């Protein structure tokens, strides 16, 4: 049984794993001040591996390729439990989306972005954009994240150039603070290049149309890149021992979204905000796409696709507006990582159980890439 390419749901598992671990890192940061780039790297690598382990899950559940994901989940977990897990996912994603919308609103407001500082203009506009992109499916999302990655590569290139004494960032970016970039900071920001869901969606794009062997090659290359970053991260660990090369202290979710995304460009205010907006829209579209797919597969099956997107967008808008109205963003962002971590912790044992069930039934144990060994 060979797999031609990564499926959207495999991608979803990887993204969940990785993002779960990133959020775990944030929580640990808040609890025990485990603040270093290397710790972030380690968790990122763990997240990627967990995500990769989760990859063959759909084929395990369905026992055949292409069978309906949600239906197989329900069948595998039992109706009540399956529905509960799906609702938990849906709710948390809508919550995360609502928070992200509000965080973007705060940034737009802070930088006095023209005509977008008003909540009831910016948020529906962002949702409309997200629906347009989400309706295109995973390939559209992959393309958008690819553009985000290109921007990051460009940003990293500029940062690396900024480290050298012969290149002054002010010469190309008039609003640059004028301080030369420190090597540690440049590497740390560069490390965000292949992290989070962008990397995973990029993989989906990167591997499209390739055979299973190439898919596996690309995945392990990405893991290799993470290991390389890990080595750099251990070097940066020296920062904890007094070599103050880089410290990421007092990191909150809002800061995190900013740290991993275009901090350099934010030096340019509006340019940075625009690129941040692009990143947020892509992520929102991704969240909406997952929500709408779940809705379509689980409930209201007879509704047209646009209705599902509309419902998911309205739910997200209601959550965002509620959070904004009751000033709950600050409170919830402390709990969001824990919720996601719990979700991950629930999912891993389920995976183990399924694996055990598959072994018991005599089915071959799948390996990374979805291909039987």
């Amino acid at each position, binding site marked *: 049984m060979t797999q031609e390419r990564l499926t959207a749901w495999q991608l979803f598992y990887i993204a969940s794993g990785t993002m779960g671990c990133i959020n775990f890192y944030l929580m640990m940061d808040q609890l025990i001040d485990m603040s270093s780039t290397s710790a972030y790297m380690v968790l990122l690598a763990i997240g990627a591996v967990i995500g990769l382990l989760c990859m063959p899950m759909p084929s395990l559940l369905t026992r055949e390729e292409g069978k309906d994901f949600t239906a197989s989940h329900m069948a595998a977990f039992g109706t009540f439990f399956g529905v509960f897990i799906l609702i938990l996912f849906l709710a948390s994603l809508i919550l995360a989306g609502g928070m992200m919308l509000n965080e973007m609103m705060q940034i737009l407001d802070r930088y006095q972005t023209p005509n977008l500082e008003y909540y009831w203009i910016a948020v529906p506009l962002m949702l409309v954009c997200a629906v*347009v*992109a989400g309706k295109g499916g995973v390939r559209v999302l992959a393309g958008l994240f690819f553009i985000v990655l290109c921007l990051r590569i460009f940003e990293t290139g500029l940062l690396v150039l900024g480290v050298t004494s012969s290149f002054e960032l002010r010469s190309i970016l*008039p609003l640059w603070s004028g301080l030369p970039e420190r090597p540690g900071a440049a590497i740390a920001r560069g490390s965000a290049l292949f992290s989070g869901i962008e990397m995973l969606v990029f993989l989906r794009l990167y591997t499209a149309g390739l055979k299973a062997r190439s898919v596996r090659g690309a995945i392990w290359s990405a893991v290799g890149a993470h290991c390389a970053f890990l080595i750099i991260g251990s070097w940066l660990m020296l920062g904890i021992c007094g070599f103050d090369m880089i410290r990421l202290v007092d990191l909150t979710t809002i800061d995190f979204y900013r740290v991993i995304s275009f901090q350099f460009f934010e030096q*340019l205010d*509006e340019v940075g905000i*625009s690129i941040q*907006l*692009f990143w947020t829209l892509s992520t929102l579209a991704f969240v909406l796409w997952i929500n709408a797919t779940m809705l379509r597969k689980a409930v209201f099956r007879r509704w047209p696709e646009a209705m599902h997107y509309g419902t998911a967008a309205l739910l997200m808008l209601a959550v965002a507006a509620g959070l904004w109205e009751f000033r709950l963003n600050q409170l919830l962002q402390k709990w969001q990582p824990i919720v996601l971590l719990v979700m991950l912790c629930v999912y891993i044992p389920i995976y183990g159980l399924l694996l055990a069930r598959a072994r018991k039934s005599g089915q071959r144990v799948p390996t990374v890439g979805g291909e039987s060994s």
Partner: protein
Amino acid sequence: MPNTNKNKKANMNANMNVKPKTDDWHTYLLELQERTYRIEWLSSMADQQIMRERILPMLQQYRPRSSEDMKLILPIADIEIRTHREKHAFLITGYISITLETAGVAHPDVLYAPCKSINYRSVEEPKEEYSESGPKDAFTESLNVNLNLIRRRLMSEQLHVRMLTVGSGKLPAAVVFMADNRLTADRLIYQVEQSSIDHPKALLDISNFATLLYNGKHTFFEPFEFTELPLQTVHMLENGKVALLMEGSRKAMIGPASFEDTFVASSDLFLPLPQVRAIRYARVICFVFSLLLTPLYVAVATYNFEMFPLKVIQTLLISRHNVPFSPFVEAFMMESLVMVQLEAIARLPNKLSQSAGVVAGIIIGTAAVEAGVISNVMLVLVSASSLLTLASATVQLRNMLFLLKLPSLLMAMVLGLPGICVFWFLLLSRLFVVRSLDRPFTLFGFNPMSRYFKGKG
């Protein structure tokens, strides 16, 4: 029983003598002793010279007794023997029908000989895809000539042609492909047949037909490529694509197309690889900046004036101090003027279009600056933006860019730099949705820029 036979005979004669109400239907009776040969044709479709030179002398000389005998003696290929009922259908495709009558009774089978009148222009130089080097022949409106132009460049057993008819006009069309790409060809054939069923009207041209295909509907971006060069078609066929040619169309439709192909020009085939790479990167940059240049100026000049360095601000202020309009109105006027100019000169004869271009581009622009309607900087930016647009490798991309500039300007005016970002987000979102022969139109390979690195791909 005799009555039945008599009725059948009467029906057959009646059927045979029914003449549709079309004035270009001609009948000639060649009577040779007891046998009469009823020859029928449409003067608008059939070549009467073939009838005079190849058919009549043979009939007079051999006096065949049946349609089968006629088929043996006539020096014409692809002769068909069918019934009377199909006569009209055959005649409108350029056949001549010959019905044998013995003692006033028509034989049930009719011979149809292809004698299509061919009046096409000869092979000429390409009108749109100009190239300094390489062969100068372009497709004509004849399907056979076009197939010949491809075949003589690609004399390979792997090259297959599948003939189809499309639309209610029963236009002959051909899908050309290499044997390895049979699946892609089947996909194209399926889409062609489906759209022929869904849109039974007569088809005007292949580009018109492309909008009816499944992947071509409801999309702003053209998911197929069109070329008038046989050389480019051959190159595409060798690169795993399939081509659709249609009678009466002077272009070939190539699929599956990809967005990267819009940066590839036929002239690239004759240049050294490093040069091709440089040119293609330049085209990509041109594409991005043709959509960014004026909107960026409008956004920054409207909302973020502080982003300009001091010296640039000085120049801008001097340039704009007499202009009564906002940067958006300036840009909108100039971009609209460029579009109108291109539309105006598009259908003018060559000499006139050159003069019109000079008048619109230089004289009106300079006069507008002197009159204080627009600023110098805007004139420079709009001219540069137009040049960047005209640098596009394909006509489709060029037309698309001119249209996309206006919404881009509008978003820049309303929302500033985030507006430009939103515009690009929506543009890319729609671009990534497009599929060409069910393959993604915008998809990067293992190496995202592989086509550019390969150069000639």
